[in-house]
C-alpha cells in the first residue's frame, strides 16, 4: 500500500534548498530507442525482424541470429519480479541521498530479463507491468508497477521521481483569457494542484468565462502579459519560487499563408506572443525552475508547451501561424537541454485544430479545450515529454514517420 502523499508544509525560508542531482544519463546511441519510447509513454523493445527474438539490453546485432535488423517495436509489458534487492549503499550522489532504493529483475513474458526500478507495491514473485519512464537525467529507465492499479500508487516516491504529477504542486497558467487557459485551470485544480496561478493581461478588459474561472478552487488570478518583458519578470519575481509547473497557454491563431497574407503585422504578433513570449517566460521562470528541481514533494517539475502539430509540418492554410509554432518547438528543444540539469521536464503537447473560434472554418475532427487540458494532466502524470492530442495530431505523427514528403504535398490540400 502506498502511503498517500502529505501536503507539504510551507517552506522554511531559512533552510537550504536541496540542489538537483541526476542519475547517470549517458546511454549508447542504440539505447536511446528506449528513450524515444519512454518520451511518448510506449513500451518498446528491439525485435529481430529475421528471427522474432525480443532483445534487451539494446544491441547492434541479434544475439539469436546475428541479424542487424533490430527495430524498436511496442511489445507486451507483462512479467514476473524474479528477485529484488534494496540498495542501501550507492556510489552515485543522486541515489546516495535517496537510498534505500529498491531494484529488481523482471522476467518479461516476451523473453528478456530487465533490471528495473520497483514501485513500492510490487512484491517478489508476483506479476508486474513494466514501463519505461524518463528519469531525472532525461534518459529512459524501466520501472515495475503492480499488475493492477493500487490506491495512491502515483504517490510512490520512486515513481514520482519520474513523473510530474500535479498533485500538491503549484502551477502557472500563463493566459486565462483563452478557452484553453480556462480549461487548463479547471483540470489542474481537479488534479490536486495546491495553487493554480492564472495569468491575465489587462485584467480590466472583460471576457467570457471570467466568473467561472475565478470560482475554480485554488485559482489565484495574477497579472501577466507574455508580450511584456517587465510583466513577465515581475510575475517571476513575485511567485517564481513557488511555481512548480508552467503551462504556456498564450496563443495567437490566425489563418493565412506566407505569400498570400499581406504585410508583417500579424506575423510579428504571432512571433511576439508565441516565440518571444516563450523566451520571456523561459528567461524569467527557467532559472528558478532549474534550481528547484529537487525541492521536496512540490519540487519544480515541468514546463508545458502547447504546440500546434503543424509545427512538425507546415499547413499552408495557417502557414504563418505554423511557422511561428515551429519556432516554439525549436526553442522548446533548447529549453529541454537547459532545464535538464534541474531534472525539470519540458512537455510538448502537440494538438490538431481546436474547437475554438479561430478554427471556426476548419472541419472536424477537432480537439476541445477540455480534452487538451486532460491530455496535459495525463501526460504529466505519466511523465512523458511528447504527447499528441486528437485524431489530426495522431494522423500527422504517423504520416510523418512514414513519408514526410508525401505529407508535405498533401498538406497543400
Amino acid at each position, binding site marked *: 500500500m502506498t502511503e498517500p502523499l502529505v501536503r507539504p508544509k510551507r517552506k522554511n525560508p531559512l533552510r537550504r534548498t536541496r540542489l538537483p542531482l541526476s542519475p*547517470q*544519463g549517458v546511454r549508447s546511441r542504440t539505447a536511446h530507442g528506449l528513450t524515444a519510447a519512454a518520451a511518448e509513454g510506449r513500451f518498446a523493445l528491439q525485435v529481430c525482424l529475421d528471427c522474432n527474438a525480443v532483445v534487451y539490453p539494446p544491441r547492434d546485432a541479434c544475439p539469436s541470429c546475428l541479424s542487424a535488423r533490430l527495430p524498436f517495436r511496442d511489445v507486451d509489458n507483462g512479467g514476473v519480479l524474479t528477485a529484488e534487492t534494496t540498495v542501501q549503499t*550507492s556510489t*552515485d550522489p*543522486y541515489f546516495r541521498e535517496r537510498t534505500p532504493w529498491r531494484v529488481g529483475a523482471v522476467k518479461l513474458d516476451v523473453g528478456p530479463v530487465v533490471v528495473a*526500478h520497483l514501485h513500492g507495491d510490487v512484491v517478489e514473485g508476483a506479476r508486474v507491468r513494466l514501463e519505461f519512464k524518463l528519469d531525472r537525467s532525461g534518459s529512459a529507465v524501466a520501472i515495475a508497477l503492480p499488475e493492477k492499479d493500487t490506491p495512491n500508487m502515483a504517490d510512490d516516491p520512486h515513481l514520482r521521481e519520474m513523473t510530474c504529477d500535479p498533485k500538491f504542486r503549484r502551477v502557472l497558467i500563463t493566459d486565462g483569457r483563452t478557452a484553453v487557459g480556462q480549461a487548463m485551470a479547471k483540470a489542474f485544480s481537479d488534479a490536486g494542484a495546491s495553487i493554480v496561478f492564472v495569468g491575465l493581461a489587462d485584467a480590466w478588459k472583460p471576457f467570457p468565462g471570467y466568473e467561472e474561472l475565478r470560482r475554480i478552487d485554488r485559482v489565484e488570478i495574477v497579472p501577466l502579459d507574455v508580450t511584456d518583458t517587465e510583466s513577465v519578470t515581475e510575475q517571476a519575481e513575485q511567485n517564481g519560487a513557488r511555481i512548480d509547473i508552467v503551462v504556456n497557454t498564450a496563443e495567437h491563431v490566425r489563418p493565412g499563408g506566407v505569400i498570400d497574407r499581406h504585410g508583417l503585422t500579424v506575423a510579428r504578433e504571432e512571433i511576439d506572443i508565441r516565440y518571444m513570449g516563450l523566451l520571456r517566460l523561459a528567461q524569467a521562470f527557467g532559472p528558478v525552475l532549474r534550481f528547484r528541481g529537487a525541492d521536496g514533494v512540490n519540487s519544480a517539475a515541468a514546463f508545458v508547451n502547447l504546440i500546434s502539430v503543424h509545427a512538425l509540418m507546415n499547413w499552408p492554410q495557417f502557414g504563418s501561424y505554423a511557422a511561428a509554432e515551429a519556432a516554439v518547438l525549436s526553442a522548446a528543444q533548447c529549453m529541454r537541454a537547459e532545464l535538464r540539469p534541474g531534472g525539470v521536464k519540458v512537455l510538448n503537447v502537440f494538438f490538431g485544430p481546436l474547437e475554438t473560434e479561430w478554427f471556426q472554418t476548419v472541419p472536424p475532427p477537432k480537439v476541445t479545450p477540455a480534452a487538451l487540458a486532460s491530455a496535459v494532466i495525463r501526460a504529466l502524470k505519466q511523465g512523458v515529454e511528447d504527447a499528441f492530442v486528437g485524431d489530426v495530431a495522431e494522423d500527422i505523427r504517423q504520416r510523418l514517420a512514414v513519408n514526410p514528403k508525401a505529407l508535405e504535398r498533401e498538406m497543400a490540400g
Partner: protein
Amino acid sequence: MMAQASIRKSYDGVIACAPVTVPYRRYSTNSAHWWIGRALHHLVKRAGIKPADIDGFCVSSFTVGPDTAVGLTQHFGLTPRWLDHIPFGGASGVVALRRAARAVQAGDADIVACVAGDTNHVDSFRKTLSTFSRFAQDAVYPYGSGGANASFALITKNYMNRYGAKREDFGKLCIAQRDNALAIPYAMMRKKLTLDEYMNARPIADPIHLFDCVMPCAGAEAFLVCREDTAKSLGLSGVRILSTVERHNAFPADPMQVRGGWALDVGELWAMAGLKSNAVDLVETYDDYPVIVMMQLEDLGFCKKGEAAEFVRTHTFANDGTFPHNTSGGQLSVGQAGAAGGFLGLVEAMRQLMGEPIGKPVADAKAALVSGFGMINYDRGLSSCAAILARA
C-alpha cells in the same frame, strides 16, 4: 565426476613459477603502471633474470587506460615477442596461465610474465562502475547505482529463494576465509569475524551485507610461465598445469544466473587432469560474493546443484581442516585489487603447492584447483575458468 576422455594436448613441460604479490593498499595515489611495474620488478628479482629475458608479457588491468599492453612494453622497456592483454577481471589469472602455457609450449616465447595490477584512487571505483560495460551503462548503473553489490544481491536472492541457502551459510564461508587471512600481513581485513558480526553487519543491498563484499584496493599479483628446463636452469621451483578450462557467456537462456560455465566444462576439467574431485588438497574459488563460491562448489563437481549450502554446513574450510579453501583469505578478506583479484587464488595455490605460503600452510599439498569468474556485464558474470595444478 564421470571421467571422460580428453583429446586436448597436455601442458607437459611447462611450469608456472615465481608467484609474486605486491602488498595491497586500500587507496593508492600511484597509477596502475606503478603497481604493474612493481610486480615486474619483483618477478625479475625473484627469478634472477634481467628484464630483457622476459620475451612474453600478459597483462590484466582495469585502470591502466588509456594504455594497452602495447603501450606498457615501452613504459617498462620490454621487447616481448609475445604479448597479450586480457582485461577479464576475475577470470584473468587462469586465462593468462593457459594462454602463456601454450605460447611457451609452442616455442613462441621462453619466459612469459603474467601480471595483474590495479590502482585504487579515492574516486576510481565509482568511475570503473559507471563505465564498466555498455550494458552496465545502459541497463544497470542507472538503477540505484549499487554496482556489483546490487547485481549480486539479485543473484544471491534468487539462489536463496530457489535452493534454500541461508545467510548463515554464506557467513560460514566468510568467517572461515577470515580465519585464513589472519596470517596475511597485507590483508585489508585482519580482525577475526564472528557469526554475530557477520549477521548484524550493515546491509549493502539486501541480502548482501558488509562482509559479503570485497574491499576494493590497490595491488598487483604476478607469476612467470616457462619451460621446465628453463626453470631448472634458473633454479626455480614451480607448479605443473594438469588441466584448464575457459568459457564465456554460458547458459544465456537461464533467466537468472544459478550456474557458471564450469557446469559445461567440468567433465573436461577433471578428465584432462586425470583426477577425481576428491584428489585435490585445496581449492581456490573466486569469491567476490559467497553465492558465487557456492555455485563453484556445485559446478566444479564437489556437490550437486542446489546442495552447496549443505556442503558448507559439513566442512570447516580451514587450512588444517576439511576442504581447505581460499587459503589466504580470498578477496573477501585480503581485498580486491581490481584484476589482481583474478590472480589471487592462483598465486596462493602456487605458493601452497611450492610449500612457501605466506600464511597458514595446507599440509603436504600436492594438487590444487583454482577457479576464476568475471565480468558482470549486465545481469550475470560471463567468464568462468578453472585450472588444476600440481606440485612440480
